[in-house]
């Protein structure tokens, strides 16, 4: 490990003599810096998307998995009796931790976002809702449905599976898309740095040929280019990462009304993740430049 760290530090500090033999190339420097910065900026967002959708999938998965709802639709005179009967059934159902009928205020609060605060809930034929919280083991949904059908015919059990599954699936897909975007960004960065490195190598054919003439080894010549492009990618990606993190930090904070969109960002130690982007960009640049330099040098006498 020490040897690797020493090699990395030697590489970063560099050989000032070796750095001077390759002339500065303006346009490839700007191109590499800009593309690394732009890619790192996008990577920060892709990372934020992945982490946010991951959190969302977990939240939806764990919160909804342990709760379900019973909806009782019955004529006015039977609603209270059927609610009572359903609660009794739930009390004796294995796997049900707690069950309670929602008050009319709670039901009104649930409908408020759609119908406004002045909805006369009492005058409308709104079904009674019972919130059921499961134990760790969970209950037998089919058995409960049969018992409810016998004791409270107006009761319909909704264990949220129907809409929880597609939501969790959608969140998982979004997370995968986020990671796929990061991979694509990495590949695009490698492609752009390869192009820039090839352009720099082609522009410096004469320099390379002189260096070979005076006895430079391939590793010496390759390292001069590798170091240059790695540092450029590291610097560009560092700038892009900082800008991306600032942009994420300036997004509106998570609000219940905003739902998913305002939850896009990093939470807690997840803020450390973007710091890996410049390091990865540097590694990608190093690999891409090394491959390009070795290929160019192999073709030279």
């Amino acid at each position: 490990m020490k040897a690797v760290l020493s090699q990395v530090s030697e590489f970063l500090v560099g050989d000032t003599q070796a750095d001077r033999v390759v002339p500065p190339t303006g346009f490839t420097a700007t191109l590499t810096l800009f593309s690394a910065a732009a890619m790192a900026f996008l990577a920060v967002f892709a990372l934020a998307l992945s982490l946010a959708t991951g959190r969302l999938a977990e939240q939806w998965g764990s919160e909804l998995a342990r709760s379900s709802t019973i909806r009782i639709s019955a004529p006015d005179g039977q609603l209270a009796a059927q609610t009572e009967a359903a609660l009794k059934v739930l009390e004796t159902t294995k796997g049900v931790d707690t069950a309670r009928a929602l008050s009319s205020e709670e039901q009104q609060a649930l409908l408020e976002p759609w119908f406004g605060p002045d909805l006369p809930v009492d005058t409308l034929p709104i079904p009674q809702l019972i919130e059921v919280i499961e134990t760790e083991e969970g209950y037998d949904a089919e058995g409960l449905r049969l018992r409810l059908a016998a004791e409270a015919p107006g009761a319909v059990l909704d264990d949220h599976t129907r809409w929880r599954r597609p939501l969790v699936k959608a969140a998982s897909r979004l997370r995968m898309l986020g990671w796929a975007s990061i991979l694509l960004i990495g590949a695009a960065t490698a492609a752009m740095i390869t192009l820039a490195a090839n352009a720099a190598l082609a522009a410096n054919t004469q320099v390379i040929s002189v260096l070979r003439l005076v006895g430079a080894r391939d590793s010496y010549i390759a390292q001069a280019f590798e170091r240059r492009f790695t540092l450029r990618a590291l610097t560009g990606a560092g700038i892009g990462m900082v800008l991306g993190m600032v942009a994420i930090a300036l997004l509106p904070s998570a609000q219940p009304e905003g739902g998913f969109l305002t939850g896009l960002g990093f939470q807690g130690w997840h803020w450390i993740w973007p710091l890996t982007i410049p390091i990865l960009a540097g590694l990608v640049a190093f690999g891409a430049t090394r491959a390009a330099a070795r290929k160019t040098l192999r073709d030279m006498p």
Partner: protein
Amino acid sequence: MIELENVAYNYGGGELLSEISLKLQPGSFHFLTGPSGAGKTTLLKLCYGALLPTSGQVRLFTSDVRDMERDDIALARRRIGVVHQDCQFLDHLNVSDNIALPLMVAGRDLLAEGANLKELTSWVGLTARAGALPPELSGGERQRAALARAVIMSPDVVLADEPTGNIDWDMSQRLLRLLIELNRMGKTIMVATHDLALIRAAKTHVQARVLRISNRRLQLAGADL
């Protein structure tokens, strides 16, 4: 040192050099002559591993060039100083840095080599031009700087390709004197040139072997020289 045995080299579908055998003994001085396009530069390139022979053997310091890794060839080139007709400098580095380039690529400490570098720059008469960039130099200054770069690693062999091609007679004489001086120090020298007057002038100071490429083959030049 450098040995070619029955070497042929094909270029563009035709044979450029054929049945070339040559042995550069330590401390020898060779002139290589022949008309333009005869293959003088190609032969020099074969001598420092920049080209591989189509057939035959080229041995650099006893190793067959075909069996040498690229790094081995790079190391061998540190023992062979090459002066090109067009000099081949790095235009963004000044004269002093260009002369020191072989030291840089060999990882030698330039501060420790400072005195050596100064002495060499003075030997080729470029002390006052040490800070100039190559495009600012005259033809003669460029050739002298290229010679200084070729010998800074104290190589065993110096190969010069038309070193006097772009310079006047006086400057040619000055360069020739430097090459003869190097030979007296024990270096093996081979100069490719079509300048017969230069060869005649050299022969009054040094015992040189004159080789001529004619009809793709290498011959010892006769009494016309």
